[in-house]
């Protein structure tokens, strides 16, 4: 099978005019994915005993996990890699040399993304593929087909609906799978998705269509957390509220590294290679300056920064919260801090 347009990335103009809907049996889906293994790297969630679900390049489709549990790390790492080489420098015959790191050429199908994670990619696009074009991020985006999986059972930490998302949202997806009794209902949104999936399955029957719309409605209702983000947080910047709520914070990188939208990085110069590595605003040395001065010396400033970046600054620039409500930072916080609670309880106005 030749997949011509799969080399182009999702853009609005490549979205289909009308979504296609298909029904695929589980065996058929797995068969199809197996046939892709030759030409593609297939990345999907895999259950690892005692550890949970992880996105990994799959050697066998049998390992693919399409159950209720959420992957621990978001699929962000395949686009904005946790550590990637930007360029190498060298010293040859008395002269310094600089060379861009080669970009990987392998095409990928990333399967099992939840709607919140896919939406996270759209938010990252605003940073890495707008005014500034990031060579490696864009390459990763262009080389990937995103096959999502609608959430069957939201977790108690989930709050996507408060972030204008939905457990069945399609933003950022090429294809979205809905797990139903005996197979999957497949919604195809883009040319890429069409090329990959239209050859298989059949139109859903009426019962299946009904199931689908019920599924979509029901899932949103299952989200337990619902709140409204204050429109403007700036009046409470100086509030001692931040002092109070940041107390439990350990200043680790769990929330930022597991966040589908956090994208802060540091440049690391190692062995004549320049790397871009994950970094997080919770770390105490994130803003440490060479002079020794740290503008965000305590947890208060650092935690406030995280909240403001997500729910104030980003919104002011890009019109959306830099949060998709996936709940990872709540679920995996070693001390159970809850950003949704902290944001929703934030005092209004400039009061102390």
């Amino acid at each position, binding site marked *: 099978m030749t997949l011509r347009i799969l080399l182009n990335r999702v853009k609005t103009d490549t979205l289909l005019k009308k979504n296609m809907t298909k029904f695929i049996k589980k065996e058929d889906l797995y068969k199809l994915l197996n046939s892709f293994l030759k030409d593609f790297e297939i990345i999907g969630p895999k259950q*690892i005993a*005692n*550890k*949970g679900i*992880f996105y990994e390049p799959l050697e066998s489709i049998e390992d693919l996990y399409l159950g*209720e*549990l*959420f992957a*621990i*790390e978001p699929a962000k790492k395949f686009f904005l890699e*946790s*550590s990637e*080489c930007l360029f190498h420098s060298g010293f040859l015959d008395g002269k310094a040399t600089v060379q861009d790191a080669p970009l990987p050429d392998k095409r990928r199908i990333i399967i099992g993304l939840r709607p919140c994670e896919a939406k996270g990619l759209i938010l990252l696009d605003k940073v890495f593929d707008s005014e500034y074009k990031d060579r490696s991020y864009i390459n990763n985006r262009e080389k990937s087909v995103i096959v999502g999986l609608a959430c069957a059972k939201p*977790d*108690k*930490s989930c709050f996507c609906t408060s972030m204008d998302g939905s457990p069945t949202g399609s933003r950022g997806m090429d294809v979205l799978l809905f797990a139903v009794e005996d197979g999957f209902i497949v919604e195809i949104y883009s040319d890429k998705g069409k090329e990959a999936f239209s050859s298989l399955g059949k139109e859903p029957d009426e019962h299946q269509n009904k199931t689908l719309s019920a599924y979509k409605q029901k899932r949103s209702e299952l989200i337990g957390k619902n709140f409204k983000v204050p429109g403007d947080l700036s009046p409470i910047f100086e509030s001692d509220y931040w002092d109070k709520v940041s*107390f*439990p914070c*350990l*200043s*680790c*990188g*769990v929330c*930022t*590294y*597991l966040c589908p939208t956090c994208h802060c990085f*540091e440049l*690391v110069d*190692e062995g004549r*290679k320049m*790397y871009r*590595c*994950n970094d*997080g605003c919770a*770390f105490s*040395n994130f803003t440490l300056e060479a002079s020794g001065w740290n503008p965000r010396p305590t*947890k208060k400033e650092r935690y406030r920064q995280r909240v403001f970046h997500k729910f104030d600054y980003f919104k002011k620039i890009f019109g959306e919260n830099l949060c998709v409500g996936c709940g990872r930072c*709540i*679920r*995996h916080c*070693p*001390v*159970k*801090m*809850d950003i*949704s*609670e902290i944001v929703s309880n934030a005092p209004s106005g400039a009061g102390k």
Partner: protein
Amino acid sequence: MIEELRNKARELLKTKQVEAVIGYQRASDGLSAIPCVIRSEEEAGRLIWDAACVYNLCGYLKDFRAKKLGIVAKACDVRAMIVLISENQLNRDDVFIIGMECCGVVDEKRARVSGRDGSDISSADKCKSCASCVPLAYDCLIKEKREKAKVSEDADKDKYEPVRKLEAKSLSEKSKSWKDEFKRCIRCYACRQVCPMCYCPRCVADQFMPVWFSKAGGIEGNFSWNVARAMHLAGRCIDCGECERACPVGIPLRDINRKIEKDIKELFGYEAGMKTDAKPFLACFDKNDPEDFIK
């Protein structure tokens, strides 16, 4: 037990014996606990105590330098404080230890990765091999009311049996399994941040003159970080298990810590967190230390 704890906190705050009490309150999910600081008598009602109180709170003490604080502490937490006192990081007179008799805490980690709420999960592994439910030191002890104030039936068993099993594996098996573990490390340093012993003003992992090991997330850097962390805890780790619990990607850090703990105990007869005047294990020696590995 909870009322007793709250009353104690009220009393301490009222009599100005402490400026604040560090303890646990209920988290937003209604089941878990979250660390909190209680500064007034009125707030003391927020304090809770149950098996959800997994965290080791002594890491928070460093946020309050030279202030008199109360702290709610289990047996394992107190051992951590003993190490901190021996390492000049904590003044015993600056803390009022509200010792809690503990029957084990929930396995928060297992609950999290299996998507359950924890109420149906048994005690954490560390509690299964815990020898004492009463802290080594405290200023007041709040006793467990329940009948079974015993930690575990397994406490008498060889607590290093899992380590021994891992040791017995072949070199290539060990190499492969640890590489699989370490490749998953995302260098979020939750293990470090949650560790009560990791109080360095700037961790070697964050230094860049020199760069001690790769910060880029490759296997070499990850391996180095985990070995460096383990070595820096040698003779200091009191097996509170917080690192392993906090690790989002499930690296069995306790296996490493306990391997070292076991070697130190068996080769040198040293145990961390028992005496406040103990010398740091790696900063002292005995002329008769084993040297059969040296040519």
